[in-house]
């Protein structure tokens, strides 16, 4: 790709040439263009991306279907996922691999043109770098920059329909995208519809009832419940409160002082759960609350960024990460999207495409099992463990119901 002023000149020349070549095609598409005319820089970038041929998951971009693309630039590979890829607010995930990533790498910025770039940042509860962009109807470009002289354009085809789910515009957007990518890997070409956080499924409600029952059976008297404003979380809180009342468990806010026999059950989405759990973990050890009956997570919280925010948690899951299907899913990601750790939501979406049924509901412990101090000279991990980097998800109970 281009660098410096020479590179910019080349970009301009290529852009003009590209306009000549694709001019007629552009005219044909004009009827579908958004009301807002794209800027010249965006046009150039879009043409270059199409001409250069970014890899596209599934071979082609489809309007309204979240997409994943990859382009090599200056020795680094940029993998960009965009969802819902519909007009309006979209979430963009950027993964960079190669010599220019890491702590000293220039910041990655994301936008639709040079004038509207924002820094892509980590988000609690999930890996990758994240940004939001507003996309026009029809088609456009997501422009990714990597330092002052590097521009990597990715075309997007948004169609005209707007997203049916508000979750794409909120803290649960990364989970929406993970599920969408899971569906896409499974072969789905459906437009992005509901997000996992839009509703509490009956399976998840059952899992939460069973979890509260187990906590009560183990002698806890108090249950601190963490939740947020999503429909799923609100629904989960109602289910948990009802079950807790039935079992004689006092439900309290997590900020309250724990009772001698207390547990925490986290029902928020990835972002809020990771933020709240990490806030406790970061406190000096002896200032952290003692919860004798432990920390328990809702089943959708199996995301490395969430389970690594606390020390040892229990989740109800209807799959074993060592089962055939979860390993296949982890293997798919490991091969094609190795920087995206598998998550429960992504796996569930993929599994639905395969038509396979979930397993029995069991309790699993999510725990680091890397019991070696970060000794000098041994700090470089060669590993990237799926589901829980540096740890394990192990079945610790018989089926529950």
């Amino acid at each position, binding site marked *: 790709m281009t660098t410096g002023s020479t590179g910019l000149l080349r970009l301009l020349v290529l852009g003009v040439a590209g306009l000549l070549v694709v001019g007629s095609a552009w005219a044909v598409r004009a009827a579908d263009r958004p009301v807002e005319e794209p800027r010249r820089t965006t046009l150039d970038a879009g043409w270059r991306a199409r001409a250069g041929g970014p890899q596209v998951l599934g071979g082609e971009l489809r309007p309204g279907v979240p997409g994943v693309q990859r382009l090599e630039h200056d020795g680094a590979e940029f993998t960009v996922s965009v969802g819902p890829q519909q007009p309006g607010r979209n979430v963009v995930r950027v993964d960079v691999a190669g010599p220019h990533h890491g702590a000293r790498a220039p910041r990655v910025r994301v936008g639709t043109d040079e004038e509207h770039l924002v820094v892509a940042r980590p988000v609690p509860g999930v890996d990758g770098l994240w940004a939001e962009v507003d996309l026009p109807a029809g088609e456009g470009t997501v422009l990714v920059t990597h330092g002052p002289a590097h521009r990597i354009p990715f075309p997007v085809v948004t169609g005209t329909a707007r997203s049916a789910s508000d979750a794409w515009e909120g803290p649960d957007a990364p989970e929406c995208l993970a599920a969408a990518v899971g569906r896409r890997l499974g072969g789905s070409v459906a437009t992005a519809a509901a997000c996992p956080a839009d509703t509490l499924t009956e399976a998840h409600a059952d899992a939460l009832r069973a979890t509260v029952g187990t906590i009560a059976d183990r002698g806890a008297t108090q249950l601190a419940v963490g939740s947020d404003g999503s429909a799923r979380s609100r629904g989960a809180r109602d289910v948990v409160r009802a079950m807790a009342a039935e079992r004689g468990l006092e439900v309290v806010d997590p900020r309250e002082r724990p009772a001698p026999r207390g547990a925490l059950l986290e029902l928020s989405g990835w972002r809020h759960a990771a933020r709240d759990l990490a806030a406790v973990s970061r406190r000096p050890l002896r200032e952290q609350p003692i919860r004798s009956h432990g*920390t328990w997570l809702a089943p959708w919280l199996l995301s490395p960024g969430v389970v690594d925010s606390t*020390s040892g948690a229990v989740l109800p899951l209807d799959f074993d990460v060592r089962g055939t299907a979860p390993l296949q899913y982890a293997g798919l990601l*490991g091969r094609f999207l190795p920087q995206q750790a598998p998550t429960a939501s992504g796996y569930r979406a993929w599994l639905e495409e395969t038509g396979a049924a979930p397993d029995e509901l069991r309790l699993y412990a999510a725990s680091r*099992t890397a019991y070696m101090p970060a000794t000098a000279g041994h700090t470089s991990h060669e590993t990237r463990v799926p589901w829980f980097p540096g740890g394990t998800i192990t079945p610790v109970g018989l089926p529950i119901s």
Partner: protein
Amino acid sequence: MHKLMTAALTTALSAAVLLPAQGTAAADEPDDRADSGPVRTAPGVTSLLQDLTGSDIVTSRTTAEGSDGKTYWATNHLRPALLPADVRKKLAGLPGLDLTKLKSTGLLGRDSGGKAADDGVRRKYLVVWAGDNNVLDKSGAELTELPKSVGTDLVGTKDLIGPDFFAVVDATKGSPTYGEVVNTTTVGPLVENEPHHMQYVWHKGQNIFAGGLFTDVTYVLDTSKLPALSLKAVNLPTDTLCGSVPDAYWVTEDGGAYGTYMGGPDLPGPCRYTDGSVRLGNGFGGSPGELVRLDEKGRTVSEAPATPEKAETEQRCDNIPLLQAPTCANPHGVQAREDLDTLVTSDYNEPRNIILNPVQAPSSYLRRPTVRTWDISNRDRPKLKAVSFLPDGPRKGQVPHHEEPRAAMETTVTNQPGNKGAFASTMQGGAIYYAPDVTAKQPEWREVFDLTAANKQVDPGSNYYGGGSNGGWLQTSFDDRYLYHAVAGRGAKGDDKGTKPYILVLDIEKLLASGGDPDCRIDDLDEVTGGGAESDCPAIVDTLDAPGGPHWGALDNLELGDDGLYRETETAKRLAYANYFVARTGLNGDHRLCIAEQDAEGKLSLDEEFRDERTGEACLDFDRESWPHGPWGPAKPHSMLFVTADDDIR
């Protein structure tokens, strides 16, 4: 050149045509295919690969039902061409063996071919518990092209997760197949076990007890038909509710075993042990750990709490999350003196090491400074007898967990009837401790050696500071003359050039001869760097350079008698060691298995004849493309045992 071309062809073919197992059944049901992982090799391709490599593989499978009602299996992948004729004949009796295939190899008759001479010499083997090093161990930098077509048929176009396995290696010095892998026994359906320890020494008639850290599973294997292994039982997480993360085993004369479960109860909160007592724990991988008594079939006989009911506060014991009663009980090393009805365990670390967690505030006080002694007069009801906090030494640690008592990974007992002592070593503390009488109500532990002295001898120009030297395997010789210690070394960082890896041999005869009141005690800095001043202190006999980072080892307790049968010996003349710890901790190793020989003066030398069959270099390298069970790539060898078939030992 031919070998290289064959290897390249093998790799190319295997990468191209590995097939996925269909549906979830493959994970739940045993099958007879060559590899036990969730992704299998097409049978036709297996044959082709075997033709190319010129070595047929014969498989046999044994199964065991877990307490969850599911079937677990171990599959042998034997290389008949590497076995003597009389061993090959015995293969015919293996359960599940494809006899037709064995016959088709043309290797059943005497002098019918193969590489192994019909020399009449009985074979001894090293059984190595190794983990598959798979795509999930790799960095995310290796990107492949995004697929242009998506759907369920994407699955399995490339091998991904391989089975963990026991490598059976010919350890018969002088054998034409010395150092060659004659069998790999894969386990399934569980993958990603993170294979860890077995028992310390194998004795005739014993089953092998082998643990998986991540799966919280203990495998029990029958060795009587070596080089084939048979699965007898699996002990699952739900069979040991009060403990997790099994570490090591000690097998008793009755065939049962004690297992140290370093991590806390499966679920956070209260757990009721077999004796009816209850402890509060902070969950899987946390604290307190426990001691589990297993019968010879791997069933849980009893779970015993490793922590007393009152808080352990003599030195700081952190737990994350906090426990109402702090405890250092995370038992790792375990050895017993059945004649003294005493068992010793050493506490290493709360397994959920938060040092590596970017979120959690670090704590050096997760490294444990404690050793526990147990009354095992009732073998099935072990009872905690004493908790001993190892005393601090004179060396100032650069960080608190480099203080001498921290991270008491291993313990080893003396063996001779007149001795009642035991040793303990600290992985980060870099010290060796001794208690002259572990039957005492409260054994008295003292520091008797600081690894600073050994580091200095190995490389006087280095920063020989002993803290963080990463000592692992600790073992007395059976005649109580020597103490062996595998030291992986401290990596370089900044101005610290670190320390080298080596196998240390100490002379402990005088120390043991001093009986119940030894003089030796490391209590000043001169003794830290120069060894103990008292005449009965351990003396360095040798340090064997061991590049690659040795963590674990085993003494060869089997010698060939005049009658052609093996027998146990108290004067082991060699040992094996492996360079691997736990990759996902950042302390890995170069994945080689080596043998060192010991001369009459106690000096060690690398056995140059124990060579990798592919490279010709000394030591067996587990980073290889292909195994008898398939082209699964590099593997991680953690622990090993010298073993023979039942018919070959007196």
